[in-house]
């Protein structure tokens, strides 16, 4: 069940994301309370946490969709909150964001969905180069046959894969997965977990994987951490994180297997 070729000491690698003392509130609700987190080059970091703890908020801040109240978020050496519109766009090309509900453009075919980021950001590509890029990401998620279908004709698992393919097409350095396995059956979950690891190897991405699925955490995470009451507890292997007396962690673990 454990991840094959887990990276042993990612901490020795270069840092690609550095988060320090990050705070974010919505009205009276203090969601993130002084979060610190590092993501290292080409590692998979799993972020666990109950629903509503602010996991999605965290990666939305990383990708500049939301603004933090205070604290610093450095991505590939750049402080997100200080970037102007154009530099932010520039940086976003290197960040792939796989949405919780896939967020495919439902007025476009699979091909148009995949081409969209290319057409927008690589204006000089020829038709042949575009086709090649589309085919190669479709191949990476093994869904070549769906190329002319509409998103509404795809299953949940297929939508997830196409969503991931769409973010891969710009060959990002960082991947942010928001609940990649939520709402999928166990077998499809295993496939998605496999895909996440494949992406890591094939595209050399550094990834943050948000989930509350412990199998997913075990199979994809080089390191694991848990968001509890607005802060991260220990970052480490699966065993290190769950070998604890902290009631909140224990109950999370048990709840996962009751389900």
């Amino acid at each position: 069940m454990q991840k094959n070729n887990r990276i042993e000491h990612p901490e020795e690698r270069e840092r690609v994301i550095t988060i320090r003392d990050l705070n974010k509130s919505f009205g009276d609700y203090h969601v993130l309370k002084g979060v610190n987190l590092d993501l290292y080059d080409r590692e998979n970091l799993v972020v666990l946490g109950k629903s509503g703890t602010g996991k999605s908020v965290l990666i939305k801040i990383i990708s500049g969709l939301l603004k933090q109240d205070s604290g610093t978020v450095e991505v590939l050496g750049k402080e997100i909150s200080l970037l102007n519109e154009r530099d932010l766009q520039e940086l976003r090309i290197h960040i792939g964001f796989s949405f919780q509900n896939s967020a495919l453009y439902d007025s476009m075919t699979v091909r148009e969905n995949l081409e969209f980021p290319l057409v927008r950001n690589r204006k000089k590509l020829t038709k042949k180069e575009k086709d090649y890029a589309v085919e190669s990401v479709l191949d990476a998620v093994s869904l070549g046959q769906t190329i002319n279908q509409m998103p509404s004709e795809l299953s949940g698992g297929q939508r997830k894969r196409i969503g991931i393919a769409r973010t891969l097409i710009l060959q990002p350095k960082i991947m942010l997965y928001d609940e990649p396995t939520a709402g999928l059956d166990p077998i499809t979950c295993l496939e998605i977990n496999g895909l996440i690891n494949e992406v890591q190897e094939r595209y050399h991405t550094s990834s943050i994987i948000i989930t509350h699925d412990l199998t997913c955490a075990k199979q994809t995470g080089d390191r694991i951490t848990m968001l509890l009451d607005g802060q991260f507890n220990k970052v480490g292997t699966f065993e290190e994180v769950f070998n604890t007396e902290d009631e909140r962690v224990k109950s999370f673990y048990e709840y996962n297997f009751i389900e």
Partner: protein
Amino acid sequence: MFYELYLVYQFIIKFFKEVFLPPYEGKEIMRQCYQVGYRSLALISLTGFITGIVFTKQSRPSLAEFGATSWLPSLVGIALLRTLAPLLTALISAGKVGSSIGAELGSMKVTEQIDAMEVSATNPFKFLVVSRVLATTITIPILTFYTALVGLLGSFVNVAMFEETSFSGFISSSLESITFLDIIASTIKAILFGFTIGMVGCYQGFNSSKGTEGVGKAANSSVVIGMFLVFIEEVLATQITFLFRT
């Protein structure tokens, strides 16, 4: 309430900022223009035609009392061009186009498609809002003149049933009393209506709240607010052109 107005103000300012900055979304604008025209054309043709017939029929007795039925074409021409065509077109577009913009952007917002665009380094405001607002602003004036034309056609059908008249004779007498000011005023009014309908639909959709009921609400308020503003603008525009006429 005032905060909401401030947000609307910001939305409009943002539009004017983005509309002049490259890159220009020519292809997307064309596609949207086509959508706007395509969606409302059938209904507008029908309504315009019927309005032409009915208005002529209704006006005939009053004019006949003064023995002035020969004024009928020019009365219809003026009424259509000054008020009926712009208003009809705007109201129908608010219903058909405004609601579908509201619903479309609303569901894109709710399903995070707008966020997805943003993180794939595309400016969603420009791609979605600017192109749609430009499309309605360009297309609705064109549709307005089309409505006026179809209305005249309807009117001609009615007139031809009662009197010996040629189509060209009818058209030239109906255009006789139309002034340059009328055409300019109607064009400006239609541009304003188009802008309003596009803006309202986009604003409602772009700021739609989470959940499926948010989409329905966005579509609904696009129509209600759009029509309300169109009426207000119509009243103001009539006052202003009146000042110019006297």
